[in-house]
């Protein structure tokens, strides 16, 4: 129970962090993992260059990798949950070997599977995802707990040579659903049209 209490007291609000990331640059290419992070980026304003996943749990980071390799001159940001990250942890090794300089990955870590009823995840007391990423070979990693740490991390996330990975510890809370379009073909087509013309 104490682990549940720990993350309910974290100061950072996931919707605020998402807005500051996604609104930083109209040209940013954003992929969000299923569930809460998809609602978070949508709450910051739905945009054609957002690709919010509604499934494919464990796939957000490698989707970002494929996009980053295809578009080396554009910044790609993956925002996903701790549960989603845990399901695809091998992706850190795959990303590290390719080392795309334009890829940033953020895990909004509320230490819970929020979408499915707030069951605790491995990060609540055992697993350090930034440590996992670093051990896999991601050169720039960090864990953000506070507003001051966030302010230091934002320019790194948005512009430092990648691959960059940050865990952002966010308050465990149930927020309103802000749903993006759920037609996958539409999400794909609008993204490609906005990016490729």
């Amino acid at each position, binding site marked *: 129970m104490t682990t549940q209490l720990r993350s309910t007291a974290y100061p950072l609000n996931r919707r605020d962090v998402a807005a500051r990331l996604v609104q930083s640059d109209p040209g940013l290419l954003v992929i969000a993992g299923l569930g809460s992070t998809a609602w978070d980026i949508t709450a910051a304003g739905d945009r054609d260059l957002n*690709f919010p*996943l509604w*499934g494919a*749990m464990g796939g957000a980071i490698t989707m970002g990798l*494929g996009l980053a390799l295809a*578009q080396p001159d554009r910044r790609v940001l993956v925002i996903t949950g701790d549960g989603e990250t845990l399901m695809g942890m091998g992706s850190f090794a795959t990303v590290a070997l390719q080392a795309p300089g334009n890829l940033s990955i953020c895990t909004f870590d509320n230490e819970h599977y929020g979408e499915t009823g707030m069951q605790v995840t491995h990060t609540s007391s055992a697993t350090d995802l930034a440590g996992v990423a670093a051990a896999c070979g991601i050169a720039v990693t960090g864990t953000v707990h506070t507003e001051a740490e966030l302010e230091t991390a934002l320019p790194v996330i948005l512009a430092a040579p990648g691959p960059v990975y940050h865990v952002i510890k966010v308050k465990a809370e149930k927020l309103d659903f802000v749903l993006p379009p759920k037609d*996958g073909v539409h999400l794909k087509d609008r993204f490609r049209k906005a990016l490729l013309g």
Partner: protein
Amino acid sequence: MQLDWWKDIYTALKAADVRQVGYVPDAGHSALIEACLADDDMRTVVLTTEEEGISLLAGAWLGGQRGALLMQSSGVGNCINMMSLAATCQFPVPIFVTMRGLWREFNPWQKVMGQATNAHLTMAGFSTLTATMPEHVGALAGETLDTAYDGGQMSALLLHQCLVPVKTFGK
């Protein structure tokens, strides 16, 4: 046995302008993997599990690049839920599958997945072709890539175990 059919897959990948090749190695794909690694116009991405390849190709397509995946039949089983991403959003995903468990298989642990690979792919929404003759591989590879990139579909070419030497683990 003619063992250079892999060159016909490589030629088909080049003709289709494939730029990202994701794989978990299989002995049957080793020469093709080497050729892709040596090609400066191809990004060859070794995966920790085959399902990463499905989302990799989805991301590549979002960014305007074509990809293809190379895996062994057991790897198809690792991909099933991730394939729903490609099916739901109609991402083109061509996969070249070296088959195990079909023919003179030494390792019984390969049989369950190998014998069910075609059915799993079909249920996941793939159209499949099977190559049993080396001289057919090139045309079938081209067809697999066309189905993906002209038709916006998921397509797989199963490379029958009769195309590769029998693996006997030194016995």
